[in-house]
């Protein structure tokens, strides 16, 4: 295992979970999907895993993270959990994903209020955790937000907040990159080297951009 490239100080658990995420990514690769995989960990246990299914579903939003989230939500709803309980549970979950979440997934993770995210390689073209946008560094409970919820509580309609410049930032989550990045990149490399898997001519399907190895700061 090459964790020297990922720097020191990465705990063995983190590496073990990332190993599981990489397994998911390999499964995606075997199914001729862009090889990204993830696992969601709650209290040290794997509660969900997911991998890219964009080609299979013909839905380009079916990224690994979305797959795992949907699985988890379905499971919790089946158990009869309320929204608040689900939100509470998400706030205790960590995500391990082989590639930096794209803007869509980073926004989704922020909406759900995920606790921590660990990723492998950075995603210079689409990354939402620092590469293109920084959706993980939200501004939870700013003063205006507190005031806003207070006034709402009192039944006031603060439409002035919306017409003005005041914005509510999303929830942030802690994010660390560079965990086994070279392994994640190697999977991408073999994916792009095996050619165009679905027989869709390159002129038709835009060529995906290969993420590059880059150490992200947490």
């Amino acid at each position, binding site marked *: 295992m090459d964790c020297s490239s990922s720097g020191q100080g990465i705990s063995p658990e983190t590496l073990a979970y990332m190993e599981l995420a990489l397994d998911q990514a390999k499964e995606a690769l075997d199914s001729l999907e862009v090889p990204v995989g993830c696992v969601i960990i709650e209290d040290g246990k794997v509660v969900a895993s997911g991998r890219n299914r964009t080609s299979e579903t013909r839905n380009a939003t079916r990224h690994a993270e979305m797959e795992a989230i949907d699985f988890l939500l379905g499971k919790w709803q089946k158990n009869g959990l309320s929204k608040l309980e689900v939100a509470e549970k998400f706030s205790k979950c960590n995500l391990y994903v082989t590639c930096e979440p*794209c803007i869509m997934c980073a*926004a989704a993770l922020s909406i759900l*209020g995920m606790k921590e995210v660990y990723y492998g390689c950075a995603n210079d073209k689409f990354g939402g955790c620092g590469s293109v946008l920084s959706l993980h560094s939200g501004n939870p409970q700013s003063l205006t937000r507190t005031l806003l919820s207070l006034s*709402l509580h009192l039944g006031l309609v603060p439409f002035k907040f919306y017409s003005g410049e005041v914005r509510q930032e999303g929830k942030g989550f802690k994010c660390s990159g560079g965990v086994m990045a070279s392994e994640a990149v190697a999977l991408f490399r073999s994916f792009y080297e095996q050619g165009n898997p*679905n027989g869709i001519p390159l002129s038709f399907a835009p060529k995906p951009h290969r993420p590059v190895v880059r150490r992200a700061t947490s």
Partner: protein
Amino acid sequence: MDGAKKTDCCVEITYIPDTPPIPPDQQPTVSVFASVLTEPKHANNLIRFKFVSCLVALELPGPEKFPSFSPFSKQMVTNVVCSFFWFWSRRLNQIAPLEDLPHVKRIHKRHLEGKVQLSIILCLASGNDDQRIALPQAVKELVDSYQLSPFVTQVGLSFCVVCAFQFLSEFLVWLCMIKNRDRDDELGMLCCWLFVLNQVCKYAATSKEQWVEQCKLWPTSYHPPTFNIDGITGFSDEDSQSVYRFMKMAIDLANTRDNLITNAAVIVNPSVQQIIASACDEAHSCHKHQSATSCCNSSNGIQSQGGNPLSGESLEEPQRLRIVASCLNPWQWSQQECSSTSTSYQWHPLRHAALVAIESSAERDRRLFPGSDNLANQSFEVEPMLSACERSPAKRQKPDHENVKAVGNGLDSGNHDSSSALMRPYLCTGYDIFLVCEPCPMCAMALVHQRIRRIFYAFPNANAGALGSVHRLQGEKSLNHHYAVFQVKFQNESLNL
């Protein structure tokens, strides 16, 4: 604003550009060091520079041995100066490229009282005043190699930085003349090379007005955009009508109760005016079961008022339109309790209208074009981009499978040939989406992934909008797909709520 078009059906379609619109006279600038070469009285020195450039070009011995007399005419001097500057410009582009300023011209030629004055940008000036005085080492070496002594650099810089943030060449020359009284030997040099802190515009002009204004500071280049997405340069009445129709459809879909609007999405194949998919927010399952006020967290409400899309009289009306779309405040899903225990469908904090619509279009794709085996047999030739002036929608894009069936094998029309009849769309390439609210980053990025061609929305989303309000995804150059974004503004009466 660009692309705004008002039509009979009381709808105004505004293009939301890649970069925030800036008034021409308020464009952001960056500081650069420029060097002024004053042409008039110092012909000898200019000729010396000519030799410098020739020497370097021919790789002859260094610049210190050139003659300091001038047998040349004034016109020749000017030409020489030009060519010398071009040489400098090339060298400087190598050692101090203006990386983020491709629109800025390196050389500035001005006519001052009948004389030509040339200036060249040496490098970007960054940081505070102290750092500004320090030129990058490479630039400094270049300057030094032409006997532009450190003295010149320092004097020029300190005077210019301290005294002249504006381009006041006479003033600067005067300063140098004073300085030269006790150092006669360096008079010529000093008068030729003056370093000035200049302002250039940071971004390329997006309109001619901006460009004219930019050139007042420092010349830039301007390339009028050549759009290949219909509508950016304006909509025909026919197109506006169909935009109005689909947007109305989305709003009707979203309008669950009086004056209460969730988000809704309609994906349309514009070439054949066909609806591919439509969906409402499914983040909360409760809006069918509860009263309007309690069903959705009131923090999601937007009161329509002046400045909002519903213009004019809506303020006076007792009933106001309220929008409760998921995209407006996606983070508060957990607080939106629904007392209803109905499990008719499940809530999902990420099932915003756009995502549901995308899923439904993907489902349609799988249904209409099952199996990936026949994928290879189908013709995937992408139609070459036709000119934007071709207004007939049918000619722009060939119809998809379903539509051809509806038309009846397309034998009656030259556009419906057999190869296109089997054409399967790649994701949502070529499709438009109509959204009631400006989407949040998640939905906006999902639409990038799904290759939507154009986005129309009715209400901006100051809280979380990713298409101009908070973020501007259509302007993120690194993304592999870019759609065109439009806001559709209704006149109050035409909305007819």
